[in-house]
């Protein structure tokens, strides 16, 4: 299991260090700076080493990963039989250290989770915030990682008993305490009892990111949608929810009985390649009946993630034309076409056309929006605020090149695109979200529900 957890700043200074097991740094070593040429004094014995001297693991990571000259080649590093897992958030490094054959996927999931928990408590993960909250972080680490085993890490539950002020023990009644513990350890660890809202309301956001890789000839090399259903719930009590969407498998199953209805409404169903759910969803029920039922956490959470590859609506098509005129000039013409209902509007459209490194000057003409050559990014950036469906727009540019004797050809990175559209490119539709709370007297009809669809570009690239 995880032997220790460290948080470093970009200089490699330790901000947080929590050691769970002795094996990760065994021999007393001077905490003086190591040079990378020096071998680390690892030994197999396990002498009693007080914490501050147990620095070699800490230093090894700094020297070999944070200060490494080369780009990081792997998120898992093995130095002298000690394994380091790291993730980076802005310029903060989180490293988990172990000497055992741990579950690597679990360690990374834990590190991500820890970032989420910290973000939920104090916002952005930055050196300043970490220093400002180090006592809290230690307290959290004590709770969510015991002897290297991840424990309950749901913020909702943690916040009931770990606050910036510590455990509110003095003010809790016995019932409150046992309620906390049963929640932390219980089946529904993500929700506490006794939540009350005057107005029961829920928001569903279907957020999709559509990914595309297209060849210069317009052939789709790969396309997929990765979507998320994010729910914000403000519901009283312990509501039982049931979520339905136009999943092909479900529709077909029901279609047997009510074939007329489905054909009449003309509802299109979509084939979901795979989906994953928040831990509140009863997976075994999904497996057997393909129904999504759950008791939601209070507030915002990600209900499900899914992926589709079939019948994706590609909101934009990019048609590039690059012509090399002699050795010192390039002519680029890019046409974008919007491909959705004319009544809908796409927003925040940005087309990024890469230019060679030896570009000396660029002249751009575009029909719509604004285009600029950004030398620092080696790209022409073309921005359009809004564009309706079934429209077309064009940009042409002349790129002057400096003559070079560099033999290597320009790699021609793909043209990438960003946008936001008010529909789900996968075609997913929410059919219903039913709420049952048998103990309290509000029914499904009393709940105010909001649904919103947003499609964004993921990696949306066309090669040129």
């Amino acid at each position, binding site marked *: *299991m995880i032997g220790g957890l460290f948080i470093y700043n970009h200089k490699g200074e*330790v*901000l947080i260090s929590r050691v769970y097991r002795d094996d990760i740094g065994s021999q007393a070593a001077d905490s003086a700076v190591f040079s990378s040429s020096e071998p680390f004094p690892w030994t197999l014995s396990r002498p*009693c*080493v*007080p914490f501050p001297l147990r620095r070699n693991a800490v230093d090894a990571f700094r020297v070999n990963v944070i200060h490494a000259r080369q780009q*990081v*080649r792997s*998120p*898992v590093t093995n130095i002298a039989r000690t*394994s380091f*897992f790291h*993730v980076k958030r802005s310029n903060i490094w989180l490293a988990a250290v172990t*000497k055992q*054959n*741990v*579950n*690597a*996927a*679990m360690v990374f*999931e834990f590190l991500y989770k820890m970032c989420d928990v910290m973000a939920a408590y104090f916002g952005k993960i930055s050196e300043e915030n970490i*220093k*400002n909250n*180090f006592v809290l972080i230690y307290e959290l680490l004590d709770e969510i990682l*015991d*002897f290297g*085993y991840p*424990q309950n890490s749901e913020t909702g539950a943690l916040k009931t008993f770990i606050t910036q002020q*510590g*455990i509110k*023990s003095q003010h809790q009644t*016995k019932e409150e*305490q046992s309620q*906390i*513990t*049963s929640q932390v*350890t*219980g089946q529904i*660890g993500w929700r506490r009892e006794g939540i009350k809202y005057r107005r029961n309301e829920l928001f569903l956001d279907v957020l999709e990111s559509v990914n595309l890789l297209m*060849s210069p000839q317009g052939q789709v*090399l*790969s396309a*997929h949608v*990765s979507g998320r259903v994010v729910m914000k719930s403000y519901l009283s009590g312990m509501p039982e929810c049931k979520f339905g969407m136009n999943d092909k498998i479900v529709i077909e199953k029901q279609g047997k009985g009510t074939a007329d209805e489905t054909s009449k409404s003309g509802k299109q169903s979509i084939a979901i*390649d*795979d*989906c*994953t*759910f*928040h*831990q509140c969803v009863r997976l*075994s029920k999904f*497996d057997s009946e393909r129904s999504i039922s759950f008791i939601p956490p209070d507030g915002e959470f990600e209900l499900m*993630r899914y*992926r589709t590859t079939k019948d994706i609506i590609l909101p934009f098509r990019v048609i590039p034309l690059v012509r090399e005129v002699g050795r010192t000039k390039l002519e680029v013409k890019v046409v974008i076409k919007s491909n959705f209902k004319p009544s809908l509007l796409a927003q925040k459209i940005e087309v990024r056309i890469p230019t060679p490194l030896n570009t000396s000057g660029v002249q751009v003409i575009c029909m719509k929006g604004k285009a600029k050559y950004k030398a620092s990014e080696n790209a022409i950036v073309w921005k359009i605020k809004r564009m309706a469906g079934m429209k077309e727009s064009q940009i042409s540019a002349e790129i002057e090149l400096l003559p070079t004797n560099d*033999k290597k*050809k320009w*790699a*021609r990175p793909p043209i*990438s695109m960003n946008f936001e559209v008010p529909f789900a490119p996968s075609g997913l539709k929410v059919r219903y979200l039913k709420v049952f709370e048998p103990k309290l007297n509000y029914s499904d009809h009393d709940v105010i529900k909001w649904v919103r669809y947003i499609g964004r570009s993921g990696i949306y690239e066309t090669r040129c």
Partner: protein
Amino acid sequence: MTDSKYFTTTKKGEIFELKAELNSDKKEKKKEAVKKVIASMTVGKDVSALFPDVVNCMQTDNLELKKLVYLYLMNYAKSQPDMAIMAVNTFVKDCEDPNPLIRALAVRTMGCIRVDKITEYLCEPLRKCLKDEDPYVRKTAAVCVAKLHDINAQLVEDQGFLDTLKDLISDSNPMVVANAVAALSEIAESHPSSNLLDLNPQSINKLLTALNECTEWGQIFILDCLANYTPKDDREAQSICERVTPRLSHANSAVVLSAVKVLMKFMEMLSKDLDYYGTLLKKLAPPLVTLLSAEPELQYVALRNINLIVQKRPEILKHEMKVFFVKYNDPIYVKLEKLDIMIRLASQANIAQVLAELKEYATEVDVDFVRKAVRAIGRCAIKVEQSAERCVSTLLDLIQTKVNYVVQEAIVVIKDIFRKYPNKYESVIATLCENLDSLDEPEARAAMIWIVGEYAERIDNADELLESFLEGFHDESTQVQLQLLTAIVKLFLKKPTETQELVQQVLSLATQDSDNPDLRDRGYIYWRLLSTDPVAAKEVVLAEKPLISEETDLIEPTLLDELICYIGTLASVYHKPPSAFVEGGRGVVHKSLPPRTASSESTESPETAPAGAPPGEQPDVIPAQGDLLGDLLNLDLGPPVSGPPLATSSVQMGAVDLLGGGLDSLMGDEPEGIGGTNFVAPPAVAVAANLGAPIGSGLSDLFDLTSGVGTLSGSYVAPKAVWLPAMKAKGLEISGTFTRQVGSISMDLQLTNKALQVMTDFAIQFNRNSFGLAPAAPLQVHAPLSPNQTVEISLPLNTVGSVMKMEPLNNLQVAVKNNIDVFYFSTLYPLHILFVEDGKMDRQMFLATWKDIPNENETQFQIRDCPLNAEAVSSKLQSSNIFTIAKRNVEGQDMLYQSLKLTNGIWVLAELRIQPGNPNFTLSLKCRAPEVSQHVYQAYETILKN
């Protein structure tokens, strides 16, 4: 209020100041002081001197302060064990606190204080906490047992904590169950022999129930624990799989991977014919693909695991090539792993797409990635023959870019393409030669030199090119030196007149001026060969090259199976067994996949009888396993083959290739060639040189002594058949058969002269064949054969001749010469003449080997209309060196387990199913070289029916 100020106190005398503050009366000040202490501790300052002062702060009602002090204690208690005792009372008291959170905090912290003296005091509170009414305390106490075990294992056993922990597996609270499982699994790992985690269907059921209810982390613990269980039969395996599959939809990737591990492992036990098996395969692909949309670090872990899964069960992801296409913004470690998997999944169906992608990648910036992409193009050419031409042209395009490392990488792979498809793409040599000067890496230089040497006859200035390398001979790496030596010798053999000087120069450089023994030895061998027998030298140096394998970097099958048991863990990321990177006792236990057992036979103990049904299938991972015979020549290149060792004695090269035009030598005196050495392959395949091997029958006699023990009766002999009709051989009629008696094989020939003239000067030669059959003595026809006379000759054979795979396998091409002409014919020999006398395998070995041989290699045959009973069959087969190792009766059927060994060391394992009263037998054959199975089956037929 912010905490960052605590980090800023750096002035001298700080410890002294802190001491004063810690002893302050004011609570707030105390708290501030402890925070400063913790901050100093974090950045690595030694604040152990403050131990007594900090511990004094412990007795407080303020929980925040208490927690801070605990934190300090955990870190410094070891350096001050005596002082740490002071804290014990408070701990014990806290364990009785009415607030469960405080009880848990106390027991959790106590476990973290790794001082022996304290552990004694820990026992009583821990015992209470394990039975606490509050689940939060119990789940904390469960982990505490693992902590205590880490400090003092004996104490934990003596106090009976392990039993209490086992009881917690049946706890009503899922999180308590999960933590108990985690603690027990860890303790069990350090006691491999103990039966701590006594998993049985009941406890498994409990775990599966808890699985639905506990936190994501708990699910991981439980799944990892389940993976260690071996179900008693396929039905149980299936029912567990059914309950684990819903986990594949969990948002936590670790839960998904651990579920995949359980499924991959238990799938081994399911029969492939089962509908459920197919369903399961289908269910596995989508979650694996979904893992690729996780954060990059997790993608990396997933990709390393997918790499294993693709090797073990390629069918799962064979249609998912596109998702492994590299994205421009992927981190480099993700790109490299994706590329690896792309090559593995490349097939005829998707090769066009793959190639287009690889070409894109070859223009990227990262040097490692570009190199790997270029190499991948070469691998595609070798793997998918149809694509070879496009690959070569793509590579040529890349060479035109003149980017140094791209050119070098391309040349290295083109060399392999030349080897795989000789005489096809040599037109590109000219382009390659243009880039000679830019090559600065040894591997590329060696590859280029190999190409020049190999095609010396087509390159006009080959001598000049090689000579240019010779100038700096001593500065070259060994790889290049060896290659240069071989290339120049090849050149000399092809163009002897112009290159005499050059060859002498290189030989003297290699033998006289070099300190490298490999180089020197190779130099001497060439020298001697060239000076004694240039013809033989030609045969040796310019011999046909062994095939190169299609797959590279494959993980050895047993290791792969072990790694499959470690899916999701570090071992699967490193592709190394845990013992390679974990110290001490942990993780040394080797895990292996469960054997497949049919439920009906579950009562049989595996020690006494071989498992009735074959073990789980394995993909074809031994390189070029389809051609094991070719592989024999190539042993150095392949991964070690487990199981019965292949007899690889020295590979002898018959010097004379009869059909290949060596007819002059046929007239010569010696039918046997010089024991050869194999200097053919560019990657320096040095097969043991066997220069002085005794020639002829002496050698085979020696073999006879060692092998012909016990069995006196000879194997079945077929009646003679006409091999060469007189009308095709100018009057010479040859009929014959093969026999095996007491370990020696002979070819019984009957020569009839149907011509009108006397025949003399008989000689016989065999072409190279699958098992190296060769005459052990010259053909002795004592008197001239007069017209209408018939003579019977028994020609002793050995199996040390040169080997070439024939189609069919048992085809033998023979040339017979007499004073009239040379005649050729081919015949098929029954395989049983190759069954050696020591082909009886040890029982244990049999079991292990049977399991080890991949399932694809198993073939089933029906032997019809054989009226014998099991005993008769067994004894009949025994006389032909098919040995019955075990016999048992399953549901009224006799199962015979048999083994046999071929002269070239290939073992064949057989399972013969005989139903009394039914003349049709079922024969299952398993062999590492499955192509022999058909012929072994024919041998069975022949033996049993005669």
